[in-house]
């Protein structure tokens, strides 16, 4: 497994470098410290959502609700802050809402035996509705600087949100490679029946994994809210698609059982760099959509063709 995975990741990584090189040549503004930090910061939210998505997809599942869950946790946390709840507590509330929404997905999928696509499609609509209903459709705005520091502040010249991203990735990599949760994530995705018959409590782990995805949705909400100084009920629309794209470009198989955390990071960066570079070049936004679509297809196509070669 590892060999292929590494090779695979390596390929994507080369792709990322190539992309960077291209933009470096095309735009004098691309390869500057401030712009690279800027990309890292812009990527952080999708990157964090992609971590949860990676766990979910490795179990051969999918989470379409993550964008809506982000919005829902965001507005709840924001309202808590406005209600004077101390910051750490309010953040916990936000994460909690995300975790619970995710767990509901998990329960529907594990005990309810719903296809993940359907369970999370429904949740996508429900969580969005709840976010709107909870706020009457209005954004909740204006927070203390100490809260906004989470997105706007720098620690050792690096934006706080980037630190958060880095920490999340280190933990996630550790969990996925070194712990039972990680091992069982692969086991469930690779052959669920075998996992059950090996005595793994598959339902329980599914609940945990979808809960985790929701939790990271909550974390994304914290950063986004701090960044915009506002929590919108319509935030995060279609973020799930970016997260899925990042994960799959990063080499995680939708068939389940295969994937790595750092591959996902590379995938997220590819999308981030692409958006940034196209802006710097002033490419018309219509063309941008075409390019991004083409890159998604191209990346995976290259990969499948390489795999074929090897056989």
């Amino acid at each position, binding site marked *: 497994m590892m060999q292929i995975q590494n090779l695979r990741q390596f390929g994507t990584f080369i792709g990322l470098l190539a992309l960077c090189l291209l933009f470096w040549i095309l735009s004098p503004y691309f390869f500057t410290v401030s712009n690279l930090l800027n990309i890292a910061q812009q990527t952080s939210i999708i990157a964090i959502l992609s971590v949860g998505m990676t766990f979910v997809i490795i179990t051969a599942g999918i989470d379409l609700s993550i964008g809506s869950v982000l919005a829902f946790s965001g507005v709840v946390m924001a309202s808590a802050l406005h209600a004077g709840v101390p910051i750490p507590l309010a953040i916990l509330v936000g994460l909690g809402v995300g975790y619970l929404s995710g767990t509901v997905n998990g329960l529907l999928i594990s005990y309810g035996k719903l296809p993940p696509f359907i369970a999370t499609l429904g949740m996508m609509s429900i969580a969005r509705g709840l976010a*709107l209903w909870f706020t009457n459709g209005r*954004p909740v705005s204006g927070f203390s600087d100490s809260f906004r520091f989470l997105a706007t502040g720098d620690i050792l010249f690096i934006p706080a949100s980037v630190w958060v991203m880095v920490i999340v990735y280190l933990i996630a990599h550790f969990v996925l490679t070194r712990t039972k949760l990680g091992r069982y994530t692969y086991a469930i995705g690779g052959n669920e029946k075998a996992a059950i018959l090996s005595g793994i409590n598959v339902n329980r782990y599914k609940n945990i994994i979808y809960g985790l995805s929701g939790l990271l949705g909550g974390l994304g909400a914290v950063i986004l809210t701090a960044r915009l100084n506002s929590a*919108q*009920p319509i935030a995060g629309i279609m973020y799930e698609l970016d997260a899925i794209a990042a994960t799959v470009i990063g080499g995680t198989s939708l068939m389940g059982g295969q994937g790595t955390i750092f591959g996902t990071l590379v995938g997220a960066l590819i999308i981030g760099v692409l958006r940034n570079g196209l*802006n710097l070049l002033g490419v018309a936004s219509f063309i941008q959509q075409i390019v991004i679509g083409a890159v998604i297809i191209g990346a995976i196509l290259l990969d499948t063709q390489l795999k074929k070669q090897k056989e």
Partner: protein
Amino acid sequence: REQFPGEPTVALVVKTLNNPFFMEMQRGAEDAATELKLNLVVQAAEREVDVEQQMQIIENLIQRRVDVLAITPSGSREIIPVISRANRNDIPVIIVDTRLDESLLESDGAHIATFIGSDNYEGGRLAGLYVGQRLNGSGKVAILEGIPGHETGDSRRLGFLKGIEQSSGIQVVTSQTANWERNLGYNVFENILQSYADVQAVFAANDLMALGAVEALSSNRRGGGEIIVVGFDAHSEALEAIRKGAMAATVAQHPYDMGRIALENAAKLLNGEEVPAEIPVRIELITIDTLPGL
């Protein structure tokens, strides 16, 4: 790649480029830019509601060191942090069309060079007043909202409600979303007609939904009396519909002028000239009587 090498670059960041309103604004800006010999980049998010992507675009343009930023914010509060960032990079910011949240602007210590535009709330109010008159102060009204939670639609709706307050007898029987979409405008209004056969007027938060409603009426099985359809944006098809009498009115905000004025003031800023803190752009209700080009 630059049209006028060496000349300063102005960036116009609109909410979206798949809406005629902003394309008009772009046209105005482009015309002005060529006259003023300025380089212009126009960018927008893929989705009108995606203020975070708009923010990213602006951040990237700051990286690009554009000389002036002209922005129509997708969120009057959410965009402020990135304006502070522009301030830190000494890039003057011109806000177009959508007014920023004053209090947050202050509390963030962010500042803008000028605000150009008329606001959506005012436009909605005009529409409300008009409907009030047309119904002589009393009647049943339906509202087609924009994407729930999207500010532009909200302020237009609220403005409209303010406007009809003037006339006591006006009653809003239902207010439902059609997501800014023409097709949903059609479906939702068709459904509304089923249950509120007696609505006399409908206010749509944009012309696309209004035009959908018009189509619904034209193919409507229930027959019945005239219904006053009022839209927003002065979409060319809406004007056409008004000429045909299918639609009663729409609110014109003159985006072309906005784009133009934005660039003219950008030029002023670049020459170190003073610009007024606020530049009103005419906003008006267009009816069959005030229809331009007749």
